[in-house]
């Protein structure tokens, strides 16, 4: 496999996220970067990936990248289409989903996620779309992968609103709350990959993308970023991966 160096930071983020998926995992997919990454994985190394969209399409195999979670192509290619209450009650809640893919407007050092509001809830600076399926995806999937561009606006010391619980206040907080999934296992950004510390659950930089320095990552993080002593380097995307990705996104 030949690698290339001519790609955007969004592209390596998406390819890295796709690598997190494998085999016949059941993957709860949101629109945007998560959907792109999951569809890329299904078209490259994980053809049996089983994608579920919250509109009720189980095992969707879209030929083109859907623009919304309710595109007709999802229904046409799905193993079955179920009512929305069953998505949450029969599939997500009992822990049948291996991986949940989430985005974030803000994320903190324990991977708690805000997609609700910037500023004060009653008098917001920016009103965001809100929770959608995220709180229960974060709670009930066996693990959660967050895909988000890294910046000080996004990676904040404390999120303005906890829409979806990551690791709470760290340590055993998540389990103490009674949440059954393991929570965010990876945060994949345009700069690198962060994973929670096994004990404290604080997000730790474990991998950086080619051409990115630890200082770049620190500069884009609103708290004193922990860095793994075994910091890895993300492999370059292959030409095939980039070709498939660009065919998907039309870029």
């Amino acid at each position, binding site marked *: 496999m030949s690698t290339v160096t001519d790609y955007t930071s969004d592209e390596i983020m998406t390819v890295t996220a796709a690598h997190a998926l494998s085999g016949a995992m059941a993957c709860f997919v949101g*629109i945007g970067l998560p959907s792109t990454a999951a569809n890329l994985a299904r078209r490259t190394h994980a053809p049996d990936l089983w994608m579920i969209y*919250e*509109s*009720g*399409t189980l095992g969707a195999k879209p030929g083109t990248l859907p*623009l*919304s*979670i*309710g*595109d*007709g192509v*999802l*229904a046409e290619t799905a193993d079955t*289409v179920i*009512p*929305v*209450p069953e*998505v*949450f*009650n029969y599939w*997500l*809640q009992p822990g049948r989903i291996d991986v949940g893919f989430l985005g974030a407007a803000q994320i903190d050092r324990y991977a708690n996620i805000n997609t*609700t509001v910037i500023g004060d*809830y009653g*008098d*917001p600076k*920016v*009103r*965001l*779309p*809100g*929770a*959608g*399926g*995220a*709180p*229960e995806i974060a*709670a*009930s999937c066996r693990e959660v992968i967050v895909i988000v561009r890294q910046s000080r606006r996004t990676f904040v010391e404390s999120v303005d*609103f*906890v*829409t*979806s*619980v990551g690791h*709470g206040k760290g340590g055993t907080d*998540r389990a103490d*709350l*009674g*949440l*059954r999934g393991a929570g965010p296992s990876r945060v994949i950004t345009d700069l690198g990959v962060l994973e929670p510390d096994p004990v404290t659950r604080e997000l730790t930089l474990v991998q950086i993308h080619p051409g990115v320095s630890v200082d770049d990552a620190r500069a884009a993080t609103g708290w004193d970023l922990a860095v793994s002593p075994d910091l890895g380097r993300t492999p370059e995307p292959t030409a095939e991966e980039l070709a498939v990705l660009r065919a998907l996104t039309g870029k």
Partner: protein
Amino acid sequence: MIVSLDEGIRELVRDGDTVALEGFTHLIPVSAGHEIIRQGRRDLTLVRMTPDVVYDQLIGAGCARKLVFSWGGNPGVGSLHRFRDAIQNGWPVPLEIEEHSHAGMANRYVAGASGLPFAVMRGYTGTDLVSHTPNIATVECPFTGERLTAVPALNPDVTIIHAQRADRRGNVQMWGITGVQKEAVLAARRSLVTVEEIVDELEPLPGQVILPSRVVTAVAEVPGGARPSYAHGYYERDNGAYQAWDPISRDRDSFARWLETDVFGGAGAAREGGR
């Protein structure tokens, strides 16, 4: 049973009502929403899991006093600017919000459809929704002692949906992604279904959901009534219209012009079967 759209809205939607126009990307009852604007309804409590462009329009037109929802946005495009203007600036009227998760809203409809006052679920735990949304509670399992989340039933005064077909007796047929529409209709005191066409016989189809006429208050034939969303088997989603909404809705004046031409203008109303 079979009515015109303007008659259906006039008879079924009253000022101050709790109204759910449901749809999940697919089959969104857009024309019915525009007719509500044309008829000048006020003080509505609007309910929907995924308020999108038509809710932005209803809010911008001043129909709503409150929004109960779990995700508000222009899918694939971005934010709802009329919604933002209402909650950030109280324009044109202040908008109260009550915010849930999708799982919570879906379960609230299920409880409403089931004649129960509440639903039990795993959800919301540890989130800030709990402290900002008053009607999230806990309930203890009488067998295991485990604490779970409870949400109250949703029983709209009227639910409005769009479907592909109805027969002349008012039985409704929809297929493709059917979202939470069945539960939203079953939970409502009254219901209005706009359809692409009224037929003599409903030919059975894979994936169909049938709403028997006895749970449907009225049916109106409104071809294209879900545009710019889509109707599986009839027409595709007009993604350009969703993108075009963004600049229109960013500005109060351009929104006012859009209202005047596309909703109140004769062509829009005629196209949509309104007055």
